[in-house]
């Protein structure tokens, strides 16, 4: 049931903007509400920026899942970075290795219907975001 709809290579901050555009397009394709779309695109922006800044670049791909009438958008972002040591801490508010406020990962998690993260020092970090239309 899963067809990949778009794929964006993440190297620069301009690519983060491309990822946002692809995310908005994917949400429009499933007829998502404005608020759901805004939340999902924002979450994608956070994750994509993390991949560029901390993950030495990566790839984010978008696809649709679910039966007709209740389709959802799934975004999978993988990077080539050093991985995250303590995932539980990374997704909690206020945690940051950089200069930010540390709301990125934890915030992204609250914005989507499903959030999954796996990380290893060898394979980098993989984040999955899923969001329905309403």
């Amino acid at each position, binding site marked *: 049931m899963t067809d990949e709809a778009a794929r964006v290579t993440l190297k620069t*901050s*301009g690519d983060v*903007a491309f990822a*946002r555009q692809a995310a908005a397009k994917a949400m429009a394709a499933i007829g998502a509400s404005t*608020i759901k779309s805004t939340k999902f*695109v*924002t979450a994608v922006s*956070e994750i994509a920026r993390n991949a560029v800044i901390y993950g030495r670049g990566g790839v984010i791909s978008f696809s649709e899942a679910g039966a007709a009438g209740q389709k959802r958008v799934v975004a999978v972002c993988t990077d080539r970075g050093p991985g995250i040591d303590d995932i539980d801490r990374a997704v909690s508010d206020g945690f940051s290795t950089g200069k*930010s406020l540390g709301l990125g990962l934890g915030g992204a998690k609250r914005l989507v219907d499903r959030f999954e993260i796996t990380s290893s020092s060898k394979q980098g970090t993989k984040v999955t975001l899923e969001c329905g239309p309403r």
Partner: protein
Amino acid sequence: MLDAANPIPMMTINGCIIVAIRDDLDDQEIVSLQDRLVEEVAKRNAHGVVIDISSLEIVDTFAGRMLAAMAQMARVMNARTIVVGMRPAVAMTLVELGMTLDGVETALNADRAINAIVSDRSNKL
């Protein structure tokens, strides 16, 4: 992605700088906007800044931080800064992110913000 030939327009009316941010800026463009804004505040000796974000469909933590920083910088340069026109979906998303931009003054639209700045100014003078 920086489009030097077509930067975001800023205009100064009566000592008040008005800047309308275009949608889908990348991080680099936001940073250069911040640089230009603080230079403009100094050059014009502005006492007010209105940042219109009504065309922004997305404000993530980076853009939110930059907005807060711009407001703070303008304020330390003695310019009252008001962010206007935030969309409902953007406001709800920022709240969910935990970014309530507490230090940033807000108004519904540029008209109200300019009125507030102007009347504030005439009270002081």
